């Protein structure tokens, strides 16, 4: 390299060891911000139940936003923040591996070519995770900016992709930690501390670069514009009507008759075949006689089947539509049992829930048939 000029103001008086500044404050804030937001999204995504979904989404979207800001800084930031500083060519990666495997001491102050590959892979993965997460939100839960464009089929596919991408990211993070530990040992320097202080010990063999002036104001303007643009786009896209949602208002006859002994379940929670079977056997309705006059039976059956699971495109409708016809009750559907399997039996048998048929005890939106994870509140205390 021709540029051998030592950067100005790089030595820090009072240090036993001469250090050079490598990572600017924004790179470091970005890195540790990413650690926190990705950790939040990963912990809530891999281990927590549906009631943590809001935090998962906040963590994931903030990680995505950080990556967008980092891309701007990668074009306009200080020397070692810029992609041009570390964007590796295949030849650079091979050369790096070859020299290092021969015990080479050549050190990159910024990212070395292998580390740079990791940086680009992680940035791309986090953006893909944020996008597939937004797609899952829109397709599966039918909310957010993409809800009008995606249905549950696409949503479930995107959720699969989201899960696979998350596993790949987890593997890359493990590799990254291993790489940092190995490289710290190999080059006898604490790389983690450098990501905190921004400085690395200066060594004679270091490749010196001319300083590159960071275009902070332009970067800030671009990031603000991008943020504003995304906010406007989100509001506009989210404001569109979402097709396939349960919207029908329950007639008084249904509310009165079905609601006499239990909550009046939304018709989209069961397929039409189940409603037919249930309304045919009211004289033995889950252990009790719930007989009704023929006219009322006909009217209620017609309304229930007109708005049954097949007629909407929501996650509960899709899930509860699957399964054998003889699993008549909502609570007997395989998906219901799977989704509630982790909950303790006593939650259902004790007050204030009292029975698994009491959806509204925990699902604040049970009446709408949406069963959004954002509307779940488990009762804090139960009594026998």
């Amino acid at each position: 390299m021709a540029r051998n000029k030592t950067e100005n103001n790089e030595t820090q008086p009072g240090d036993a060891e001469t250090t050079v500044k490598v990572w600017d404050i924004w790179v470091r804030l970005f890195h540790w911000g990413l650690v926190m937001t990705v950790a939040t999204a990963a912990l809530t995504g891999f281990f927590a139940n549906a009631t943590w979904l809001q935090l998962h989404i906040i963590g994931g979207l903030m990680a995505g936003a950080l990556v967008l800001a980092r891309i701007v800084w990668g074009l306009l930031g200080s020397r070692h923040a810029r992609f041009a500083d570390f964007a590796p060519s295949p030849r650079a990666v091979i050369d790096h591996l070859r020299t290092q495997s021969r015990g080479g001491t050549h050190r990159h102050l910024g990212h070395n070519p292998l580390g740079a590959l990791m940086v680009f892979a992680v940035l791309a993965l986090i953006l893909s995770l944020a996008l597939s997460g937004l797609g899952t939100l829109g397709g599966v839960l039918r909310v957010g900016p993409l809800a009008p464009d995606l249905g549950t089929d696409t949503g479930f596919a995107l959720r699969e992709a989201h899960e696979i991408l998350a596993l790949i990211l987890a593997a890359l993070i493990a590799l990254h930690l291993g790489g940092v530990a190995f490289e710290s040992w190999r080059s006898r320097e604490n790389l983690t501390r450098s990501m905190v202080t921004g400085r690395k010990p200066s060594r004679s063999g270091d490749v010196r670069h001319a300083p590159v002036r960071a275009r902070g104001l332009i970067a800030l303007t671009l990031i603000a514009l991008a943020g504003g643009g995304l906010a406007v786009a989100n509001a506009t896209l989210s404001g569109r009507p979402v097709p396939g949602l349960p919207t029908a208002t329950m007639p008084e006859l249904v509310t009165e008759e079905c609601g006499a002994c239990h909550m009046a379940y939304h018709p989209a929670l069961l397929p039409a075949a189940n409603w037919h079977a249930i309304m045919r056997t009211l004289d033995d309705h889950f252990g009790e006689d719930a007989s009704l006059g023929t006219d009322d039976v006909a009217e209620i059956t017609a309304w229930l089947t007109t708005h049954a699971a097949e007629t909407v495109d929501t996650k509960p409708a899709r899930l509860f539509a699957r399964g054998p016809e003889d699993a008549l009750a909502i609570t007997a559907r395989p998906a219901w049992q799977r989704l509630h399997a982790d909950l303790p039996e006593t939650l259902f048998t004790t007050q204030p829930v009292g029975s698994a048929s009491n959806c509204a005890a925990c699902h604040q939106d049970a009446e709408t048939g949406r069963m959004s994870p954002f509307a779940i509140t488990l009762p804090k205390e139960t009594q026998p």
Partner: protein
Amino acid sequence: MTSPIPSLKAAMAAAALTVLAAPVLAQDTSPDQLLSAYEAEAGASADLARGQALFTGQHTGGKPDTPSCTTCHTMDPRAKGQARTGKVIEPLAPGANPERFTETAKVEKWFGRNCNSVLGRDCTALEKADLIAWLSSL
């Protein structure tokens, strides 16, 4: 057949049709009226003790989950009960809940359902009279 006052006749017919077409009005009866009607149908007088025994007793002819009226209405019909689904049932005794036994259709609907659930058969008119007599006395 011609009528001297056809407009009045038409109005009366319209009024009669309106009454027939209207749904059964809420609050069309009272516990006392129902009691008299069931006693008349049975041709016998109600008995409080028989009503209490029927209500609080354990029965075997009906559905296994509901062996007694008290399964849901509890031993004290003046208190709130609870359906097997966890839903609250308002008190059954008219003394605690004046809305009870004031709608013929509702009374018949629930006697029909619950007698079948608990006893596995319809209640007789005398049993209904006994039950209303006991519940009204609370």
